[in-house]
């Protein structure tokens, strides 16, 4: 699992990986909400996510709502096929801005 937060061109890039389930979702939620407080656009890299369920999705939805209410952006990047399937099921692929890779996300967020 490759995880961590980097700052690139003034944006926070949060890489999440592995299984984001009921066990891990609270930690992911805290991590994302801490990022939102920094008032920078957040790019969440989901390329290494092997499983995500409704609790993981809920953490991302909450972070998106927090970011939106604070006037910052939260974008998804390189969403793995397993995760994209779940976003599509929830019809959240229309709610989140999803970029194919980090370069595209940085260009759009500029």
């Amino acid at each position, binding site marked *: 699992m490759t995880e961590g937060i980097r700052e690139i061109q003034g944006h926070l890039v949060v890489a999440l990986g592995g299984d984001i*389930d*009921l*066990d891990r979702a609270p930690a992911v939620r805290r991590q994302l909400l801490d990022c939102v407080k920094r008032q920078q656009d957040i790019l969440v890299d989901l390329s290494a996510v092997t*499983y995500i*369920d409704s609790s993981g*999705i809920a953490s991302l*939805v909450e972070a998106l709502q927090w970011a939106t209410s604070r006037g910052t952006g939260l974008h998804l990047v390189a969403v793995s096929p397993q995760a994209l399937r*779940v976003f599509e*099921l*929830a019809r959240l692929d229309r709610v989140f801005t999803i970029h194919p890779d980090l370069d595209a996300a940085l260009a759009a967020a500029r």
Partner: protein
Amino acid sequence: MNAPTAEYLLELRIPARADRMVMVRDTVRSAARFCGFDERTAQDIVLAVGEACQNVILHAYQGRGDGPILLDILDDAERMILRVTDFGPAVTPAAVQPRALQDLRPGGLGTHFIHSLMDTADFGRSPTGVGNVLQMTKKKDPAK
């Protein structure tokens, strides 16, 4: 409840704790592949069972982690049958009803996933009178 020709594949008894669910997922994925489902469909079945277990943890046992989850898996020629049983108090159907997707808020998606991913999902009290049972089925041939 079972098709007459259904073969019992496995019975798993596991604590209703979030940190144990990875074992349930690994088991269900293996069972689904054993039943002949492709990897993508196996992942769908894993997600449905994961959501069912999450409902047990959050609603039937209210996060206490002190009750068991029973998972029974049966296989017949046409479908895979998965039964998730808990021993908690009755869960009101409203607690496990899918919510409207346009209602954008955290939570409430799990039951929507279950109904979207499985061919049938029937929730009710256990025939023994103790606990709740969710029985789900997945057809091997979606066209049938």
